């Protein structure tokens, strides 16, 4: 088992859970952060050789420090791999978005990722090693009516990814993002995946959380040391 640990925010299900499993297979002790579904997070953690479920809502400004402190104490080392995956949606046409719809999506998807990144960097810089992977979305680059808040947060995440990557590259800390397209998870369960949406996907199918997790695992690996500030699109050709 490695020294240090990995932390996946929003790790109880979907892409986060698949990523926690992939990082566990890569040999990392993994902190599986969750907001509300303790049973699911505990189940993911229990599957791993060394997993720990940690409750915390990343939209709460105090949460990042509490989550990291617990991970460091109970998994025996600094967080050297951070996957900012926690995300929520509150879809509506822009004209109908409430302030709460806007704030909740930006707070969780963007501000939460920033605070976790800031908390992680100091230990990573001292360790002269770190891997941060942000889970963005293809909607950051391409219009998806009904998701102005989500698109703004994910586009912000990409801007943050590139800038922080440039700031810390000289310390062997990399910061990258994946941009999933249509992935079959609870978040997309309400969308009708059987027809119109998938016609636009050259692969003619939805992606799986495991296919995104494999990309995160690569970006989080030692082998990806010279890959930083990049966005790896995982969308079956949707944006090709």
């Amino acid at each position: 088992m490695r020294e240090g640990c990995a932390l996946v925010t929003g790790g109880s299900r979907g892409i986060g859970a698949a990523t926690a499993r992939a990082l566990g297979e890569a040999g990392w002790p993994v902190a599986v952060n969750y907001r509300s579904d303790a049973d699911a997070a505990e189940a993911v953690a229990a599957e791993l050789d060394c997993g720990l479920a940690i409750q915390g809502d990343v939209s709460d400004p105090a949460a990042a420090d509490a989550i990291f402190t617990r991970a460091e104490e109970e998994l025996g080392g600094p967080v050297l791999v951070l996957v900012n995956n926690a995300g929520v949606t509150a879809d509506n046409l822009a004209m109908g978005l409430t302030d709460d719809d806007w704030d909740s999506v930006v707070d969780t998807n963007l501000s939460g990722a920033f605070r976790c990144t800031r908390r992680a960097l100091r230990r990573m810089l001292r360790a002269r090693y770190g891997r941060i992977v942000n889970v963005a979305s293809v909607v950051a680059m391409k219009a998806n009516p009904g998701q102005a808040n989500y698109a703004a947060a994910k586009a912000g995440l990409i801007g943050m990814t590139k800038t922080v990557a440039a700031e810390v590259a000289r310390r062997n800390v990399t910061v990258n993002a994946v941009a999933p397209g249509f992935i079959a998870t609870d978040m997309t369960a309400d969308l009708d995946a059987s027809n119109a949406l998938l016609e636009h996907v050259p692969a003619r199918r939805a992606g799986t959380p495991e296919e995104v997790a494999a990309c995160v695992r690569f970006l989080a690996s030692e082998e990806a040391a010279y890959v930083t500030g990049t966005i790896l699109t995982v969308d079956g050709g949707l944006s090709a």
Partner: protein
Amino acid sequence: MPETVTREAIQTRVYGALEEFGAEPTDLAPEATFEALDVDSLDLVELGQIVQEEYGVELKGEDMPKLKTVGDAVDMIAERAGV
């Protein structure tokens, strides 16, 4: 903040931090420049976090370009700590 913060204590702490960042102990002096010590902007941000925790002194982003030498940093920290 400890009750007996002295300028000497601050300088000692700053020297200690710079050594942790990789500076040669024999090169540390008030007139030594951060550039010559190979202490970069990331190190200075970390130094700012250390003095905030230990002395309650805030070094802001806008302060950083003014800090050219070790003495500049010790002076600024000491001044803001009321020493």
